[in-house]
């Protein structure tokens, strides 16, 4: 299946609102694949410059090459209605990238955590960080067909997921599967108590 990149660079004139979702997970778990499958544009990437101690830099004055490092960030876009566009950022989950998150996570609807059953534990740290930060998240198990996928209850226990956190199995190369994973996340965001509090505020 897969997306049909429109080849169009610019957004439709009517679009006024951008929403953002992070697609996070360990090395080679399928983040870029997932984003590209749902994206309507060719994969794009940019880089963030960070100091070695982890701060995102936006003013290069007085900072030398020795103290900075760059992190590649790939992203895609999907126009969802006349007014709204979704941006998806493939975000490395390794510890040294966590400060970059702070910036990316600002204003994000939530995060989708990708995991590989053959190495579930590689996705644990990222979940703890999301919980600390209070960013809504869902978990998508990417099926690499190498290990049999355990029953969902067992996976939920492994991740220690609260009952309301969505958990789906997914193939990052398949459009229906990736769309379904996104749907489960947004449904969760809509149902969250925070969302209700906002409504009544």
């Amino acid at each position: 299946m897969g997306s049909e990149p429109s080849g169009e660079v610019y957004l439709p004139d009517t679009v006024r609102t951008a929403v953002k979702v992070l697609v996070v997970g360990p090395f080679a778990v399928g983040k870029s694949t997932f984003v590209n499958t749902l994206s309507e544009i060719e994969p794009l990437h940019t880089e963030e410059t960070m100091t070695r101690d982890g701060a995102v830099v936006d003013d290069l004055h007085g900072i030398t090459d020795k103290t900075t490092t760059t992190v590649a960030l790939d992203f895609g876009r999907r126009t969802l209605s006349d007014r709204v566009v979704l941006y998806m950022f493939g975000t490395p989950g390794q510890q040294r990238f966590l400060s970059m998150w702070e910036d990316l996570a600002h204003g994000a609807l939530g995060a989708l955590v990708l995991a590989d059953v053959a190495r579930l534990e590689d996705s644990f740290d990222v979940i703890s960080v999301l919980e600390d930060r209070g960013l809504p998240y869902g978990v998508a198990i990417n099926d690499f067909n190498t290990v049999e996928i355990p029953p969902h209850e067992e996976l939920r226990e492994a991740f220690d997921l609260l009952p309301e956190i969505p958990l789906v199995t997914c193939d990052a190369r398949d459009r229906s599967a990736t769309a379904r994973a996104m749907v489960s996340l947004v449904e969760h965001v809509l149902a969250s108590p925070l969302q209700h509090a906002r409504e009544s505020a």
Partner: protein
Amino acid sequence: MSPPRRRDREALVRPYLITGGRAHPTRNTLDLTTLIQATRHADPSLLSPEQRRTLRLCSGGSLSIAEIAAHLELPASVTRVMVADLVDQGHLATLSTEWQQHGPDRELLQEVLDGLRALR
């Protein structure tokens, strides 16, 4: 197979505090997904080549800051600063991102959800 458990590791790996020392309190109104458009009456004569490239790209239609950075092959952070300057000078304008201050409302989320469901 019994999968490993996340909480078992907590004794070993404490949850990280994302401190990260934000180096730049000034420009943080511009997000990577802030949408940008060129304004009609901008006079580019005093701009640097880099700024003109940005204006030329943006005059074709609206784009996010992340896309501007990607197309110009500039670091996101540098792009953010340059776009902020161009907005201050009236060459570029940001489209509404009001909800980003308070979080998305129900109506917006429902629209996102409907759009995603149509993709399945």
